[in-house]
């Protein structure tokens, strides 16, 4: 018969003496990421490779604190990388709705902005000065004089011609008119009528001719005016180009290596020359719209808005490449936005209102995003993929994109994008994206998969100690004694439910350290000791322990029926785990089996009422297949068996009870009682091998707590799959009871081993003749099955006979 486990197999303690330090204060900070070799390699690869689509998706539960780790890693790497360019938006003077983007070396953006500001400031004094200069005024007067002369000459000549013919040109309220004169007086109609007819005819025809000439002159006036306007404009342009020229020349020289900036400066100069009047107006003379002064937005000093430089990315204080984490990745926060200002009830905008998004800030570096947040923000995911595919940030407002609003908007020149996007998300999200978004794998080729656990080796223990030290310093906590470190390591193994592994859930470990620090403070300790850690663990459990306590209590009070001594046929103690998220505990359940003659059905009552999940049903089907293929193969399986989890109202899932169910069934078939002082866990396969299950520690402790409360008899214990032994990290009291021989953990490999422990009767193996030894469990089971089969055949035959008689 299988021996109970040695107490040292029940708990793999961490020996404080393996450490040479006294407290964690003696330890160096840990800079690398521990236990994540695969992830670290992936990050190195993903951040190193420059090809398109090699963005990163970091998988890991939130508890691994991967965000902080990745961020730290990226920052270290980014510092050594070149600082990317600054970006500015400037006015496009020929197409104002398509602002130009300017790329400048890091830090130069704000310098350019200041330079242009200064230039405009200077021009506001220089240009008026130029226009007031003697030189300009004279030249302008010459032009105006020429026009005046031309016009006057035309009129004078006409007047003169008229005069020679005794006709005067008079100004009347109804326009200019010609009239025959006599001594400064206009002929009155009577006088005119008295003139000889030939004279009248002459006057009339001459007036008509003069009229014609007058009309000709008037027709020419607009043309002359246009000419003079053109001439004055040309003069203004020339004068300003000259005045502005030498100021801009300095800038052109300064930015000569940046041809884009130079061509911007050229366009700027042209525009200033064409709009020199703006520099002459005082703010109050700015155009107003139906007597309502325009808002500050477009008047006064802001009339020069179009000459501003909108620096959207400024790296003047940056060292290395940027690492940006966008906590609120809305579409606009990613792509940037174009804001509007309400003016007289309409929305207006210009390139100064272009605001950068996280992608602009991260351009040339790294952008970290929470995948879940990106996916839950409307259009953010589509927008992100679009820019990553295009490798350009093309700003389109959502309103525009959806055609929701129609207002003045801009089409800023797209900015080339070179960014590594690091998405952080959990496993489920990753696989969903892989499956449902064909573009995802194109754009996020590098998966960084964080381990939840790491090997528990001597070197790793030391690294873990250093990690603890680093965390305490980062959090400002008391250092830990080495015994406390050992206790944390042990608890870490327990968190992952594996004696050979350690948890990489930095968050849970950090929480434990914080809480231990608190209890150390309460106890007045300067250094956290193992007791403080234990207290923190106990307190954590205590806080979430209410439901476990209620269940234990109901078992003690006999509301939930669980036997811990005596023997019963077809009844066994199964074990299940209730997981409350942060806390899981084991709960014993009574499983019973009943058999009778039937058509070979094993009924899982849980499934019939849909309280059992598919995995549980699978376990039941496996054990029915085990029964039918192991015993009386040549006879039809002729039993009806029913299995039930007694007092289970919330559904059962998982196959960890399948071995217990099988034992109960075997007991019922063999009519051999099972020891109720034992509980069982483990799944079973078609060959009767017992397989590993999860939550082994919680399950054992769950049964132990009941037995302990009722008094340990020394016969009590739990059967676990042998393959689960390595996961044992049992509570101290369980280990102590085992050491004292009061509680036993049996590692079981096959159903035969288990049934022997549970019944005290050997299972029995088939001999050369193919028979089980007499009295063995297997022999009894087979005999029962054969008896049932024969009875069924007999019944069938008699039914047939009766039919034949009829």
């Amino acid at each position, binding site marked *: 018969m299988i021996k109970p486990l040695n107490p040292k197999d029940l708990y793999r303690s961490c020996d404080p003496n393996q450490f040479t330090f006294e407290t964690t204060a003696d330890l160096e900070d840990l800079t690398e990421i521990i236990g994540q070799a695969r992830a670290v390699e992936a990050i190195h690869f993903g951040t190193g490779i420059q090809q398109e689509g090699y963005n990163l998706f970091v998988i890991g539960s939130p508890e691994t604190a991967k965000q902080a780790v990745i961020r730290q890693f990226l920052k270290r790497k980014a510092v050594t990388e070149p600082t990317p360019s600054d970006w500015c938006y400037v006015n496009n003077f020929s197409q104002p709705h398509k602002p130009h983007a300017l790329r400048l070396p890091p830090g130069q953006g704000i310098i350019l902005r200041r330079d242009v500001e200064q230039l405009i400031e200077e021009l506001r004094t220089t240009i008026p000065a130029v226009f007031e200069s003697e030189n300009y005024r004279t030249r302008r007067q010459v032009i105006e004089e020429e*026009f*005046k*002369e031309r*016009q*006057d000459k035309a*009129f004078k000549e006409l007047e003169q011609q008229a005069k020679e013919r005794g006709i005067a040109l*008079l*100004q*009347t*309220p*109804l*326009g*200019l*008119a*010609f*009239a*025959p004169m006599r001594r400064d*007086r*206009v*002929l*009155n*109609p009577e006088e*005119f009528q008295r003139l000889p007819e030939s004279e009248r005819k002459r*006057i*009339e025809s001459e*007036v*008509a001719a003069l*009229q014609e000439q*007058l*009309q000709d002159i*008037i*027709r020419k*006036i*607009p043309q002359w005016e246009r000419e003079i306007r053109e001439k004055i404009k040309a003069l203004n342009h020339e004068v300003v180009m000259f005045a502005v020229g030498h100021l801009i020349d300095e800038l052109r020289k300064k930015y000569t290596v940046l041809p884009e900036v130079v061509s911007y400066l050229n366009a700027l100069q042209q525009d200033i020359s064409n709009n020199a009047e703006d520099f002459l107006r005082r703010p109050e003379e700015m155009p107003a719209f139906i007597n309502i002064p325009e808002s500050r937005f477009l008047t006064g000093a802001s009339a020069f808005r179009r000459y501003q430089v909108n620096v959207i990315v400024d790296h003047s204080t940056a060292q290395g490449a940027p690492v940006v984490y966008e906590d609120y990745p809305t579409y606009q926060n990613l792509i940037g936005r174009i804001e509007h200002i309400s003016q007289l009830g309409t929305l207006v905008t210009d390139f100064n209102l272009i605001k950068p998004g996280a992608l602009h800030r991260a351009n040339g570096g790294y952008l970290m995003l929470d995948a879940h947040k990106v996916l839950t923000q409307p259009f953010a995911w589509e927008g992100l993929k679009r820019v990553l595919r295009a490798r350009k940030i093309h700003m389109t407002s959502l309103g525009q994109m959806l055609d929701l609003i129609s207002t003045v908007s801009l089409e800023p020149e797209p900015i080339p994008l070179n960014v590594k996007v690091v998405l952080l998300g959990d496993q489920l999200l990753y696989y969903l994206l892989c499956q449902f978004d064909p573009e995802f794998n194109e754009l996020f080729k590098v998966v960084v998969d964080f381990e939840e656990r790491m090997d528990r080796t001597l070197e790793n223990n030391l690294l873990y100690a250093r990690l603890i030290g680093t965390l305490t310093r980062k959090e400002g906590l008391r250092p830990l004694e080495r015994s406390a470190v050992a206790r944390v390591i042990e608890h870490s193994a327990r968190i992952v439910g594996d004696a050979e592994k350690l948890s990489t859930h930095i968050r849970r470990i950090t929480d434990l350290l914080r809480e231990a620090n608190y209890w150390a403070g309460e106890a007045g300790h300067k250094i956290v000791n193992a007791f403080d850690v234990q207290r923190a663990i106990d307190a954590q459990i205590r806080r979430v322990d209410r439901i476990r306590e209620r269940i234990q209590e109901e078992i003690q009070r006999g509301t939930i029926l669980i036997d811990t001594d005596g023997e019963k046929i077809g009844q066994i103690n199964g074990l299940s785990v209730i997981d409350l998220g942060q806390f899981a505990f084991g709960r014993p359940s009574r499983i019973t089996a009943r058999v009778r003659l039937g058509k070979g059905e094993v009924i899982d009552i849980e499934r019939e009422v849909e309280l059992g999940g598919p995995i549980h049903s699978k376990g039941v089907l496996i054990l029915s297949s085990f029964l039918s293929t192991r015993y009386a193969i040549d006879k039809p399986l002729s039993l009806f068996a029913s299995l039930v989890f007694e007092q289970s109202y919330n559904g059962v899932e998982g196959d960890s009870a399948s071995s217990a169910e099988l034992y109960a069934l075997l007991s019922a078939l063999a009519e051999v009682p099972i020891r109720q002082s034992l509980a069982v866990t483990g799944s079973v396969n078609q060959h009767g091998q017992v397989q590993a299950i999860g939550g082994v520690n919680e399950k054992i402790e769950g049964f132990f707590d009941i037995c302990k409360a009722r008094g340990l008899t020394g016969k009590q214990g739990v059967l676990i799959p042998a393959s689960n032994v390595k996961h044992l990290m049992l509570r101290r009291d369980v280990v102590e009871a085992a050491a004292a021989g009061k509680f036993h953990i049996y590692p079981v490999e096959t159903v035969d081993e288990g049934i022997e422990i549970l019944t005290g009767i050997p299972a029995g193996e088939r001999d050369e003749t193919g028979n089980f030894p007499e009295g063995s469990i297997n022999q009894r089971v087979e005999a029962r099955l054969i008896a049932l089969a024969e009875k069924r055949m007999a019944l069938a035959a008699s039914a047939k006979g009766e039919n034949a008689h009829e």
Partner: protein
Amino acid sequence: MNKQESKAAIRRILVALDASSHSLAALEAAAELAARMEAELLGLFVEDINILQLAELPFAQGVSYPFTVGQQLDKSKMERALKVKAEQARRALATTAKQLHVRWSFRTVRGYITSEVLEAALEADLLTLGKSSRQLARRVELGSTAREAIARAPRPVLLVQHGVSIKQPVLVVYDGSESAKQALATGADMAQAYGDGLVVLILAEISDVAQRLENEVTAWLQGRKLQVGYRWLDKLDAQSLIQTIQTERGGILILGSESSDLSLETIQEILEKINCPVLLIRH
């Protein structure tokens, strides 16, 4: 020089209005002057008989910018147009006078403009005119009424062109003649009323004479709290006058029309070429 005798009290200012921009400038200047000197403003609009007669001629056509096609004129149409103009002038006068709290009256007469204006001038102490009523001529050239007024007006004439108003300082040309003394008296009054400086342009061929004239003026101005500056002009032609006005930034020029060597043509030339208002004083 007798102060009493040279006192040029301006109590009534006649302003001839034709609703042209020059005449409106004249109105502004006259109103401001009236306010400063507590004078009364007399508005006069003349319905020009010449124009009415013209309208009666069978072939009469009026052409006005920017319309390039002439419209047929007739008497009733012209009369209506003149009424409209007169009303415009009256309204302009009323508004301006009210703003400056100046007493005013307005009348419309029918007749030949020049003679009507000159006749009406007899009732006033000062006649204010726009330099021209022409709206299409770009260069200011004296209108016929202004020319006549310079030659024949029985009263001082203030000529104003569109776009300018009376400003400080007051410039007076002084050559010791009677009309120059009158000009000086008026200039001093105006400078006092406008509360700023007076610049006396001493007109003399030799410096001795200039000095003497300056002393004369200084003596005459004694007791008046005025900032007085002196400039010496060795000849009075349009060019040197324009230059002086520019350098002094003159706000108004006061000129005695009977100054020793000023011909009517010179005065006309000066008036045509300088931009600031000109007050012509006759003795």
